[in-house]
């Protein structure tokens, strides 16, 4: 079909792939600043176009109708989905895309293996081993991501789901999987390739992916999503080695690095190790004083009084959490900030690294509501200013403000860095009810003498505060 088909090993192909991944790296490099990031994204997309066009011109590319149908269907689905998804739904979308990437890689590995069976010349180990790696990691990533998607979309309960003896089952599964892969890896001579065992490995990795993610609670999702992102990247790099494709190797490795960095940052922000998050469901860590059920006195306040308190403050810090995303309250919060600023109050936002369900989740929501990014402050930056802050407004956040993380060694979240809301002069907590957070940990902040609870749906409460502010 293409007149001058390119030899995959030739210099022009190599150079075009170098151009393509250079554009990826440059694109990500521009992603380090909000004003240049959009251009960076466009540049990375051009890199992708170069890589795809180059590959389509290679010798041996055939079955054009499948390629055309595949690209058309994929483009249609991708374009529609990206237009429709709401900013609050970004964690689900990212989880789903991670899964698709992992799934594609597992499928490619399978196709490659089937091709070798047909050729029956035997396979060199340096192609077979990366293929097996790509298959296993890709399949884990596909199924793990689908479970994460299901949890975020609330198709499956987001609480940790545990089967008795889960650790043992997972360990046995992993050992069996490794053994089967080693068997496949050494059976590389002509006539020795074994597709049933290959499929068994695909399925085993799938079960492992499901089993590992299923017991993980909603609040640990930022770590899980980042880790699955790293997995998908690594499996792509492995597939690149198997297929001798440098663009795939570099592209996959970049994604792997990104996922790894984010995983470590998120785990750090929770003061837990990655294995601890994956293998010890939250709350099972120690006895700890989880919600004891006893009634403790707290103070509640209506929206009108809250508005008055805010209007007379000099500085207000808003602490958003997942509840803000659930209530879709970001626009109402922006209006509240505008009202306050027009009354001369200094407003900023304190963003905990693991607030929400994925890295940067709160920032995206607030950016959607046109909050200037200069007002979004990171935890370490804002904490020293909190003692001079008049009012902290906690909206839909819980564990990331729990002072027990600093003071109570028995607490399951002890040692996790928090936004030190309890240091501020006054605290308003917008919350549906007194029910504890996802891990059932009581939050001492709610019972603190300087805290007032404002009950109700976050969006409704904030809108009420906005109209009260307008009347003042």
């Amino acid at each position: 079909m293409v007149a001058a088909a390119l030899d995959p090993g030739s210099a022009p192909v190599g150079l075009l792939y170098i151009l393509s991944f250079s554009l990826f790296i440059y694109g990500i490099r521009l992603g380090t600043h909000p004003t240049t990031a959009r251009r960076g994204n466009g540049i990375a997309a051009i890199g992708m176009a170069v890589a795809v066009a180059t590959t389509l011109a290679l010798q041996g590319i055939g079955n054009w109708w499948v390629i055309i149908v595949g690209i058309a269907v994929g483009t249609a689905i991708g374009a529609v989905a990206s237009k429709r998804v709401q900013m609050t739904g970004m964690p689900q979308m990212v989880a789903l895309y991670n899964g698709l990437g992992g799934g594609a890689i597992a499928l490619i590995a399978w196709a490659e293996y089937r091709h070798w069976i047909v050729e029956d010349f035997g396979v060199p180990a340096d192609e077979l081993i990366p293929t097996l790696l790509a298959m296993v990691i890709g399949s884990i990533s596909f199924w793990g991501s689908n479970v994460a998607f299901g949890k975020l979309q609330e198709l499956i309960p987001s609480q940790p789901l545990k089967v008795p003896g889960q650790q043992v089952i997972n360990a046995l599964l992993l050992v069996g999987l490794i053994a089967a892969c080693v068997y496949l890896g050494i059976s590389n001579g002509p006539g020795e390739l074994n597709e049933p065992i290959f499929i068994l490995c695909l399925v085993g990795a799938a079960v492992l992916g499901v089993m590992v993610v299923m017991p993980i609670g909603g609040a640990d999702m930022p770590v899980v999503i980042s880790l699955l992102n790293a997995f998908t990247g690594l499996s792509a790099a492995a597939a690149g080695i198997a297929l001798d494709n440098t663009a795939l190797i570099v592209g996959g490795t970049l994604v792997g690095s990104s996922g790894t960095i984010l995983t470590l940052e998120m785990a750090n922000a929770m003061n837990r190790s990655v294995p601890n998050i994956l293998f010890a469901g939250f709350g099972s860590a120690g006895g700890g004083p989880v919600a004891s059920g006893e009634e403790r006195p707290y103070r509640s306040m209506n929206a009108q009084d809250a508005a008055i308190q805010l209007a007379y403050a000099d500085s207000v810090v808003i602490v958003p959490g997942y509840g803000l995303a659930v209530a879709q309250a970001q626009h109402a919060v922006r209006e509240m900030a505008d009202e306050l600023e027009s009354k001369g109050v200094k407003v900023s936002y304190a963003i905990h690294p693991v607030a929400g369900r994925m890295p940067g989740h709160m920032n995206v929501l607030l950016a959607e509501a046109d909050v200037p990014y200069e007002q979004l402050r990171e935890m370490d930056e804002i904490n020293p200013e909190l003692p001079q802050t008049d009012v902290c407004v906690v909206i839909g956040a819980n564990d990331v403000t729990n002072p027990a993380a600093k003071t109570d060694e028995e607490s399951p979240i002890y040692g996790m860095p928090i936004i030190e809301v309890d240091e501020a002069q006054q605290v308003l907590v917008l919350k549906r009810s007194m029910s504890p957070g996802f891990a059932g940990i009581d939050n001492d902040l709610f019972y603190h003498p300087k805290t007032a609870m404002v009950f109700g749906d976050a969006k409704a409460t904030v809108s009420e505060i906005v109209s009260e502010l307008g009347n003042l």
Partner: protein
Amino acid sequence: MDLVTEITILVLAAFVGFEVISKVPATLHTPLMSQTNAIHGIVVLGGLIVIGYADAPLDYVIGLLAIIFGTINIVGGFMVTDRMLEMFGGKKKNRSDSGEDHE
């Protein structure tokens, strides 16, 4: 290409990746993730290559799915990232003055 050369490329790419990506501020972590989602759509290249030697019906199904998945990643990933970054652009600075000046 021999394995050692490929591993060399992988290791160097990992160091470049760590250097560049660790400079991305927390504010932009969600767009970073969706952009890397798009970049790992590069696996579509693998799909394009393996479909070339499909012959059994199952090979076509596997290859077609791989191409669809990869393309969704690329198109959806870059488009949704663009949508997000448009909001971060800081071009809507006119918000408090009733929107008459469009920068």
